[in-house]
């Protein structure tokens, strides 16, 4: 009896802790979402209350009078293409490292591992010079290349762990069935690591979407700005209209949240893969 009560207490404490941390995480997001529907007067008059109505004026303002849609589009282009490029090249690199024996395989994987440890930002000046000489400054393509290169080490690291765990007989079997090496990779092996692809994708998409540093340095023309960068100018312009600001922030956060919700099952499956056989 005593024991049971203890177990109950522990469970309750755990729930309280979990609920508490959930609120701590969700409340600011909730506030942001709600404030996006409020007018400036409402925000200052009753900052913690719910909005009077689902008033979309702030969003209309953003959509019609600001450059935020343009920023949103730029960020989407950069993030989607970077992640796609990253997953394709990362999968190929990880596949070569983890499935084939060749001279220098260890060297190559060490090279990627080193990329995990070295902060790219330290090399910003040579990087800038290099991008400049390639004409990629103030160009979304430049950002895409930087992000792809920057995220490659972690992607290779995540994917090669999963690829290494796939049984060799599967590959042999496909070989006996006559499939080419490329076909084995694309049709047999890679479909089996989709959870890992989702992990690597989300893990890298979030910082790319949110990145402020590289656009700040490489992007100059306003129409090439990404969202995180664009929002700062927007902050300057709209520092008097908080409702519009919050609506902008909501728009910035929304895509990643949606992607995450859609893929969360696979994400979690991937995170716990191998934990239980």
């Amino acid at each position, binding site marked *: 009896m005593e024991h049971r009560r203890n177990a109950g207490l522990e469970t309750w404490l755990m729930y309280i802790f979990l609920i508490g941390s959930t609120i701590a995480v969700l409340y600011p997001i909730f506030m942001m979402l709600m404030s996006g529907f409020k007018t400036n007067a409402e925000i200052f008059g009753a900052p913690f209350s719910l909005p009077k109505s689902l008033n979309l004026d702030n969003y209309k303002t953003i959509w019609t009078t600001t450059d935020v849609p343009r920023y949103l589009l730029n960020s989407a282009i950069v993030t989607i293409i970077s992640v796609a490029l990253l997953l394709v090249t990362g999968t190929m690199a990880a596949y070569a490292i983890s499935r084939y024996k060749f001279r220098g395989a260890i060297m190559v994987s060490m090279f990627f591992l080193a990329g995990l440890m070295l902060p790219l930002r330290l090399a910003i000046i040579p990087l800038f010079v290099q991008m400049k000489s390639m004409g990629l400054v103030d160009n979304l393509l430049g950002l895409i290349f930087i992000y792809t290169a920057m995220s490659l080490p972690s992607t290779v690291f995540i994917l090669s762990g999963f690829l290494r765990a796939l*049984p060799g*007989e599967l590959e*042999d*079997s*496909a*070989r*006996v*069935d*006559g499939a080419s090496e490329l076909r084995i990779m694309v049709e047999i092996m890679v479909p*089996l690591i989709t959870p890992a692809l989702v992990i690597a994708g989300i893990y890298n998409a979030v910082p790319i979407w949110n990145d402020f540093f590289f656009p700040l340095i490489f992007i100059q023309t306003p129409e090439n700005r990404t969202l995180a960068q664009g929002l700062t100018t927007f902050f300057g312009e709209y520092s008097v209209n908080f409702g519009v600001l919050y609506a902008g922030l909501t728009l910035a956060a929304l895509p990643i949240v949606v992607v995450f919700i859609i893929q969360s099952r696979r994400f979690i499956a991937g995170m716990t893969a191998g934990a239980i056989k």
Partner: protein
Amino acid sequence: MAKVELRGVNKQFGSVHVIKDINLTVEDHEFVVFVGPSGCGKSTLLRLIAGLEEITSGEIDIDGARVDHLAPARRGVAMVFQSYALYPHFTVAQNMGYALRVAKEDKAVIDRKVREAAEILQLTEYLDRKPKALSGGQRQRVAIGRAIVRDPKVFLFDEPLSNLDAKLRVQMRIELTRLHRELNATMIYVTHDQVEAMTMADKIVVLRDGRVEQIGAPLDLYNTPDNRFVAGFIGSPAMNFFAGRAESVSDAGVEVALEGGTRFTFPCETPGVKAGDVVEFGVRPEHFSIGGNGDGGSDGALKGEVYAVERLGGETYLYLNSGSYRDIVAHMSGDAPISIGDSVEIGFSLARSHLFGPDGQSIR
């Protein structure tokens, strides 16, 4: 269907010499089993034939054409792996049809062939399932089906039944034998299961340490093993060995003295031993006669003390010690009235016994 020939095949992994100068012919329609202890190179040899590993030297022919430089798919072989290696994200039908799809076969043809194979293996109702929704035996059948669909010249099996439980294994063994008859195919089968080897094979290849020890029909290996290794490896429980001395060698044979004073003349034509050599005398458990019972005859006998008795109902196994000869196993049919501690006479007939020289070769 086709004949497979290996000539002087060697395989080295770096400095490790795994397959050593193998010469072997597998005839058309033959069911050949590779047996040998773990690590002797059975799987490696099979993978060399399949083309999954490259040979270091030698030559492999299938159907009269040299194949050792060809990719696996172009050798006309199909392989069934120990882990089944089914593609988890494909349905049973897709798994079975994959090779044909890769070969750009017509969709209708693929469909028909998959259905035919499924029919043979009783898989028709599972064609739309994924492998994870199948039992072990069904998965095994899908793996076999995948091989059948391709209509290969040679089937290669690497311990295909070792993941199944005992009952299913017996069932699949019979099924495979039937399949071999129906398809009239050339099959090479790797196992370390005695019973599988003895019951399924037309011809057994005994391997040790990357070398062929003996090739022959199951009963030939059982009755006339070439050497001590084969004698000890084929047959279960294993043959009993007794170290002795060749006292003299004459036209009549080799006079052997065992410990404890047992003496007999082992008849043979080409002894290959000389007086004073250490020899080993071998008798299978089922060839002893205990206390005068059984068909072992009485060309000689040892006195043994029983230290364990296993009664299986239809048969009885006795475990005995006799002087420095320890752990002798003797088989008796029926339930024998013998108990632990009994001292019994274990007789043998020379016609069913074996003698091995100091080099381990059979003396016949």
